[in-house]
């Protein structure tokens, strides 16, 4: 919303030394965000009033040689093509150096002294659209240069000053005005400035007694309409609004139409109260407010005719006239021949206006105000401004009738606030007189009673804005200035933490995964439909009503497929790397927390070993309850059924899986080369020990000994079974370690050479060489007997 400082001064005497930038700063800190200050006069630099003193045709052209009196800027010769140029007129002369936008020229043009047809032209007489003033000087009929008919000015005067554009206009963020319907007009803002700066608001006009009539209105529906007034102005003329009004409207972004449309707009920008002027001759009394009926449409000026069934409408005996609070229809609009005006000034239900505006797809200045909830008493202010303006501008016009139907007057909010409450919330003591002074300036009535203040909010703050003591705290604080409060540290009772201090599992998992060399990534919670075939539970997923794209309407049931896409996106940069994510998944339309990692490289064996190492390090370093790894898993998914481990908790519940990514999943996610191993764990199914579960093991006193062995074994013999067979083979076996394996030359197909190390020791003495050799033989025999393994 645009606010003219010059206009504000009609209602409050702002100190002359208060700069627009200061006003912007103060209003931003105390009330609403001002996004910037505009100076509309700056675009008019170099434009002056010029009086035409002579006009001669240039033979053989449509051009004229014009002499222009530009006062202090001298007599200037201008070559001009406008048809309306004539002796005695005053127009806008652009001096050399000024910037204008001539019709058809495209880019703006800098005015210069030029030769045309052998004649010197020392400036340009301008049309409204060449200097961006079509809102002030609407072009009607044939286009021509601006005729400053109703301007009091002398030749050579700066145009900006003459038309009131030497102003500063504040641009206020509408979003920050949402809860302050009282500020949607200059009077409301003037009141706010009066409170901020301790100034006095000037008296507002009064409409006086208007002659009553009872036939203007029917029974406006109380569910739709809080109050409806109709006022008849007779003996009016539909002319152009005076320059000062057109100028103010233009500065706040409103184009001039005709006097009566301009008047309703002007009163709205002044008071925040919308209204609508009808040609009374076109109406059949009485008017009323009702819901639109089936089949009813509203014909609009642009020729469209939206359905208004069920929307709040203003109607006369014949037809629907307007969508209440949104927009008037084409019928019964004011025209040149209008002699009697029927002015509607009303107050409608905020929610219904918003819904209506949404359904019609029409956002208007009126609907923007009504949907914020305008108090019904605002009409009194608006009407007084209207009557006062008409009296000045069209003294011959008369108010001959007025009718007022009040369904739901806005009730002033009453509340009681304790000074001690204000002190507790603000950390500063405010006396009753200070609070009263601040609130009175804002229109509150205040009555002191001991520590309490009994307050009555003004109607313009009573439509939802002020309702609680906390609202009063805010008023006091913002008028005091938030920057003027000293820091008060919060005082708290030191007590036991609600939960034991420990880093959340999420964080400990992430930090451990980073320690294993993986990079964290974020992916989106929705998944591409094309990836569902490589998930384990593709059915029964949450579906977004309005998804980012139709293919991304499902929320992911697992993390791995999205991670594989990240792997694919990075594979052209590097051959081997690993990524992980910890986040929410939604299998079976339930939210769960999950962890996934994916490693790419060229050797599936070593990738698998590394991924398994990552998983084991999580259990070990995060002190998780033990997990079991079961060989194999079957069914749909991203994993290779021949290279997968199912992770199972002690309870038997499946916690996740670790597997090689199958070829289908690699293709689906765009992984072109290399091998990938991934793992996914349900974080919500991992159990942490309450504290570290480690126990001390005494260090060996006597030296340990041992031996390395290599056996050729069939691939069907798993390490796990060898390990489990050898660990208890003799009481002196302290550990059995994997050293490595070899397949290829010299080893029969379907077999491998498996190397292992056995460590031996006793707690009471050193083992003898003979004892060690005996265990070695036992191991060799055992492997031969159990696994048909041949020592190499």
């Amino acid at each position: 919303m645009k606010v003219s400082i010059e206009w504000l001064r009609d209602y409050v005497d702002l100190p002359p030394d208060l700069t627009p930038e200061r006003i912007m700063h103060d209003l931003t800190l105390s009330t609403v965000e001002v996004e910037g200050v505009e100076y509309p006069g700056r675009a008019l630099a170099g434009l002056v009033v010029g009086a035409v003193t002579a006009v001669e045709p240039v033979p053989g052209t449509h051009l004229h040689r014009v002499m222009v009196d530009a006062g202090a800027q001298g007599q200037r010769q201008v070559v001009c093509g406008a048809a309306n140029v004539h002796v005695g007129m005053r127009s806008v002369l652009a001096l050399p150096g000024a910037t204008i936008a001539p019709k058809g020229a495209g880019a703006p043009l800098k005015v210069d002294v030029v030769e045309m047809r052998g004649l010197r032209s020392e400036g340009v007489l301008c049309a409204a659209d060449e200097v961006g003033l079509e809102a002030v000087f609407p072009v009607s009929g044939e286009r021509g240069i601006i005729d400053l008919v109703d301007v009091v000015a002398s030749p050579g005067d700066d145009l900006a000053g003459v038309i009131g554009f030497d102003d500063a206009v504040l641009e206020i963020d509408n979003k920050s005005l949402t809860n302050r319907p009282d500020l949607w007009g200059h009077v409301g803002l003037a009141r706010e400035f009066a409170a901020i700066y301790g100034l006095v608001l000037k008296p507002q006009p009064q409409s006086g007694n208007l002659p009553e009539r009872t036939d203007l209105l029917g029974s406006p529906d109380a569910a739709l309409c809080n109050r409806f007034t109709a006022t008849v102005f007779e003996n009016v003329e539909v002319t152009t609004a005076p320059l000062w009004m057109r100028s103010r409207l233009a500065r706040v972004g409103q184009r001039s139409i005709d006097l009566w449309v301009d008047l309703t707009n002007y009163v709205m920008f002044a008071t925040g109260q919308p209204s609508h002027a009808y040609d009374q001759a076109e109406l059949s009394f009485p008017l009323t407010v009702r819901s639109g009926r089936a089949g009813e449409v509203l014909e609009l000026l642009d020729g469209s005719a939206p359905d208004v069934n069920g929307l709040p409408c203003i109607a006369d005996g014949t037809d629907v006239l307007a969508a209440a609070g949104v927009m008037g229809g084409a019928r019964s609009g004011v025209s040149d021949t209008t002699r009697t005006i029927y002015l509607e000034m009303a107050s409608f239900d905020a929610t219904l206006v918003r819904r209506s505006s949404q359904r019609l797809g029409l956002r208007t200045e009126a609907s923007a105000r009504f949907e914020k909830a305008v108090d019904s008493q605002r009409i009194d202010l608006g009407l007084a401004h209207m009557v006062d303006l008409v009296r000045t501008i069209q003294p011959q016009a008369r108010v001959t009738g007025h009718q007022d139907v009040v369904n739901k007057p806005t009730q002033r909010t009453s509340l009681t606030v304790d000074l001690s409450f204000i002190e507790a919330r603000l950390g500063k003591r405010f006396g009753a007189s200070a609070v009263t002074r601040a609130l009175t300036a804002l229109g509150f009535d205040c009555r002191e009673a001991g520590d309490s203040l009994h307050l009555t909010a003004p109607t313009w703050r009573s439509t939802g804005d002020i309702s609680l003591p906390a609202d009063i705290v805010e008023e006091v604080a913002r008028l005091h200035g938030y920057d003027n409060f000293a820091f008060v540290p919060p005082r708290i009772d030191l007590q036991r933490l609600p939960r034991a201090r420990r880093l959340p599992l999420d964080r400990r998992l992430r930090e451990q995964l980073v320690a294993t060399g993986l990079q964290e990534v974020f992916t989106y919670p929705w998944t591409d439909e094309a990836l569902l075939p490589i998930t384990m539970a593709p059915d029964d997923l949450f579906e977004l009503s309005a998804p980012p794209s139709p293919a991304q309407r499902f929320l992911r049931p697992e993390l791995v497929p999205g991670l594989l896409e990240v792997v694919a996106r990075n594979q052209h940069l590097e051959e081997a790397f690993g990524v992980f994510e910890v986040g929410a998944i939604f299998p079976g339309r339930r939210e769960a927390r999950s962890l996934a990692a994916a490693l790419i490289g060229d050797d599936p064996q070593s990738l698998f070993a590394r991924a398994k190492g990552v998983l084991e390090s999580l259990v070990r370093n995060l002190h998780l309850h033990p997990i079991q790894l079961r060989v194999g898993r079957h069914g749909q998914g991203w994993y290779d059924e021949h290279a997968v481990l199912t992770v199972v908790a002690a309870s038997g519940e499946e916690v996740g899986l670790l597997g090689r990514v199958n070829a289908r999943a690699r293709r689906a996610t765009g992984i072109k080369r290399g091998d990938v191993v991934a793992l996914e764990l349900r974080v919500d199914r991992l159990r942490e020990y309450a504290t570290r579960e480690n126990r001390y093991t005494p260090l060996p006193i006597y030296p340990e000994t041992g031996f390395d062995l290599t056996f050729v074994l069939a691939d069907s013999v798993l390490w796990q079974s060898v390990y489990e067979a050898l660990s208890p083979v003799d009481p002196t076996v302290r550990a059995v370690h994997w050293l490595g394996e070899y397949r290829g030359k010299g080893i029969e197909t379907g077999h491998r050479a498996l190397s292992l190390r056995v460590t031996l020791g006793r707690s009471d003495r050193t083992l003898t060489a003979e004892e060690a050799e005996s265990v070695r033989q036992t191991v060799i025999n055992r492997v031969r007997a159990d696994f048909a393994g041949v020592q190499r």
Partner: protein
Amino acid sequence: MSESVDTLRERLQTALSAATSGEAVEQIRVDFLGKKGVITALLKSLGTLDPEARRQAGQAINSLKVDAQAAIDERKEALLDAADGVVIDVTMPGASVAVGGLHPITRMMYDLDDAFAALNFEVYQGPEISTEDFEFDHMNFPPDHPARESMDTYWIGNASDNRPTCLRPHLTGGSVRRMLQGPPPYRFVYPGHVYRNETTDARHERAFVQYEALIVDRDVPFTAGKLLIDTILETVFGRPVKTRMRAGFFPFVEPGYEIDMECQVCGGKGCSLCKHVGWLEVMPGGVPHPNVLRAAGVDPDQWTGFYVNVGLDRLVMMRYGIDDVRLFHGGDLRFLRQFR
């Protein structure tokens, strides 16, 4: 006699300089200091001298013997040192260490968690799937508030819950969940992903991360909120950052504030980033609205508080000078690895 000592000294030096192996040095030691060595022989010859000459010569020879042993040892050490030589181009680039990294937003989140842990705040984590009552009703959005109907919440069409269900559009709704878990006072931070249906560009994302801090106690003057704000900004920027609070309206706070920080690009002088005002809007904040506290089962006549909510994406962007918010979910390792 003394001439002999000087000659021997020189001969030893020459021999040691010429020796290039430990064996050669050992041979020199035998030649000079061995049982049949020249210095040993010289000592034996002392007996033929008169007492005064013997004393002088003895001193000279003994000194030679000590020096000879030292020179031989030093030469042996020098030869061992020389044998250890390798060639390294010390200007070559350092080898990359294969460590992983946290996402820059996670890193920032944990830095903030640590800072708030020092103020005895707990870390709360709520669900990402939420319902209209938590996201809007409890947040004091009136039944007809436009935000409810706005298209930027990701509503879920097939939720089994009979309440309208969505991906959470903000974190604030979750604070009520935490408060419902137990009685006040509360001091917790609440980080997490939130989702909005927006058209994406360099400044807009559909998934982003917010960080919220809430304190609820008997007396919490609004200036105490500055403590939360300063804790966040100092942690992020590593130095005190000038801030200001101004009136702002949000349904879930009363009073509500917009919190601005001094533009870190121009230092408050005004630049294009801050639209020449010297301040940047960084977070909303305020006192939890009595209706929000009531929804959480907390008596607003007894308890009050302060809350702030900051967009971590934007802070991380400001902190590192990142110019495109979409990079955070892009999964590009070249980007993510810059923040280790």
